[in-house]
């Protein structure tokens, strides 16, 4: 069969398939009435014809056209739908907490790497307050003590006029950025995640020790205690996700390093989804609740207690017994 005969024979089918694929790109109503059987039939035939055209060394324009046609149909037929409300519900009721428990070793390591430097640095600065200058400049230290002083109108800010919304935006940009960095730098054999966890621990510990030394503990701890339930946990979890991909690179077990990395990334991205949600909650609490001065302390601490209990219970209990926590594979 000559190329021209071949084209004449199959042209009608190619046009029909092209037409169907175009309709698929159109509106929802057009897609609903699509004859799926016909589409897959035409796709298989186009695959056969492409193989034939290759074998018989038909001219480039025909092979290219068939290749384009089959590639487009392949994309449509094997597409995976991951978005949707159902998927989100599954993610937060089962997948996220299960993924956290499945990688509990990394979570514990990340917790230690964050908490130990916090405690050590906190105690050091509490007893020798001049050490704060090894972490921040004198100006910054003065700023911090001003933010949490008893006379400040709203806690945790330099200027009261910034407004809750502006601070919400700031916390979103800053905190989620930090946690993404903590995750991404895990790619370097986990070293980056360890560094950012420890660094944040040292920084937080130094500030806490310094303010406690100055006698500002009342305002400071009542400010951080509620949102830290979400924020600290989220930073630890993103660090744990980073450690997971770093460890996969170091010790790929019976896979190639690339395969191990790809699989670890897919597993840990589920944790990152959860981290994003937790940090948005944290930013909202930090901006609109923690900074309010009119609230009695007892109320702040009881709400904080509820938040901590809720986060820990969610991560340890939610989705337990669910037979198969699906991982987000593609």
């Amino acid at each position, binding site marked *: 069969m000559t190329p021209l005969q071949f084209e004449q024979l199959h042209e009608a089918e190619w046009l029909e398939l092209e037409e169907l694929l175009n309709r698929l790109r159109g509106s929802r109503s057009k897609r609903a009435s699509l004859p799926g059987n016909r589409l897959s039939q035409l796709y298989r035939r186009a695959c056969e014809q492409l193989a034939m055209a290759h074998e018989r060394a038909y001219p480039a324009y025909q092979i290219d056209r068939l290749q384009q046609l089959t590639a487009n149909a392949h*994309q449509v037929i094997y597409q995976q739908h991951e978005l949707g409300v159902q998927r989100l519900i599954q993610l937060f009721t089962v997948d996220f907490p299960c993924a956290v428990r499945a990688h509990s070793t990394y979570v514990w390591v990340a917790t230690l790497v964050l908490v130990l430097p916090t405690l050590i640095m906190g105690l050091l600065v509490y007893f020798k307050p001049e050490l704060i200058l090894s972490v921040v400049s004198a100006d910054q230290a003065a700023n911090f003590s001003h933010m949490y002083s008893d006379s400040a109108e709203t806690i945790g800010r330099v200027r009261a006029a910034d407004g809750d919304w502006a601070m919400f935006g700031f916390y979103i940009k800053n905190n989620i950025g930090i946690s993404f960095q903590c995750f991404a730098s895990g790619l370097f054999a986990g070293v980056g995640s360890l560094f950012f966890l420890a660094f944040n621990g040292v920084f937080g510990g130094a500030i806490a020790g310094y303010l406690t030394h100055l006698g500002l503990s009342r305002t400071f701890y009542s400010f951080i205690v509620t949102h830290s339930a979400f924020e600290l946990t989220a930073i630890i979890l993103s660090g744990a996700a980073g450690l997971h991909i770093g460890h996969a690179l170091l010790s790929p077990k019976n896979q190639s390093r690339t395969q191990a*990395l790809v699989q670890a990334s897919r597993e840990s991205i589920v944790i990152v989804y959860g981290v994003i949600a937790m940090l948005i909650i944290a930013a909202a609490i930090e901006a609109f609740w923690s900074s309010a001065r009119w609230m009695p302390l007892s109320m702040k601490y009881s709400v904080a207690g509820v938040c901590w209990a809720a986060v820990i219970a969610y991560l340890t209990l939610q989705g337990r017994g669910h037979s198969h926590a699906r991982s987000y594979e593609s």
Partner: protein
Amino acid sequence: MTRKVLDAAITSETPEGIMIELRPAGITVRCYAYMLDLFIRFMIGGVASAVLLPTMKGVGTGIVLVLFFGMEWFYPVAFELTRWGATPGKRTFGLKTVMDNGLPITPAASLIRNLLRTADFMPAMFGFGIVSMLIRRDFKRLGDIAAATLVVYEQKIATKPRPLDIEPVAPAFLLKPEDQAALMAFAARVVKLTAERQDELAAIAAPVAGCISSPDPIVTRKVLGVAQWLLGRRG
């Protein structure tokens, strides 16, 4: 028909047993696309700041900060999940992001490759990303490796050759399939060549038309005639 050629194309086999050809995009074109995206983000940020900051005070600041955050991390994710699979910058340069097997990128993969951009950026100015793209055959940066994604050229179809006004000539002997393809490819791009170059190239293939190898317009017409015959035209 598999031939060893100097080519960066990657093939991925589908369950139907056909090969999908992917052409990974190199560092230069990806740089252009990135810079265009950067410019677009810069413009959006500039306009939003100019409009929102003076008019809405605190709330405006909040919205602008969230917008900057969103554009820094989720601008590529949002665009990669559209049906073009590419940011405006990539689309402009004819690129798109796909999975290793040629399928549309999944939300998880898109998030992975864009969050790991931070790692590519280290130690400074995309140092690791650039090294990774330069030493790999498929030009992947670190984020692409972890997400199992590829940045490829959108496929372009070779244009259908206009039928040449030339008498079909039966080949002098039976031609191998790859030789037939070479002749038809020559006929397809002959319009883009100068007359001298046409003659030079045709001289190489002269034996198929039963002529002596010499750069001569008559030989060229004969060789192109053979290509017409192979396409299926008969007298």
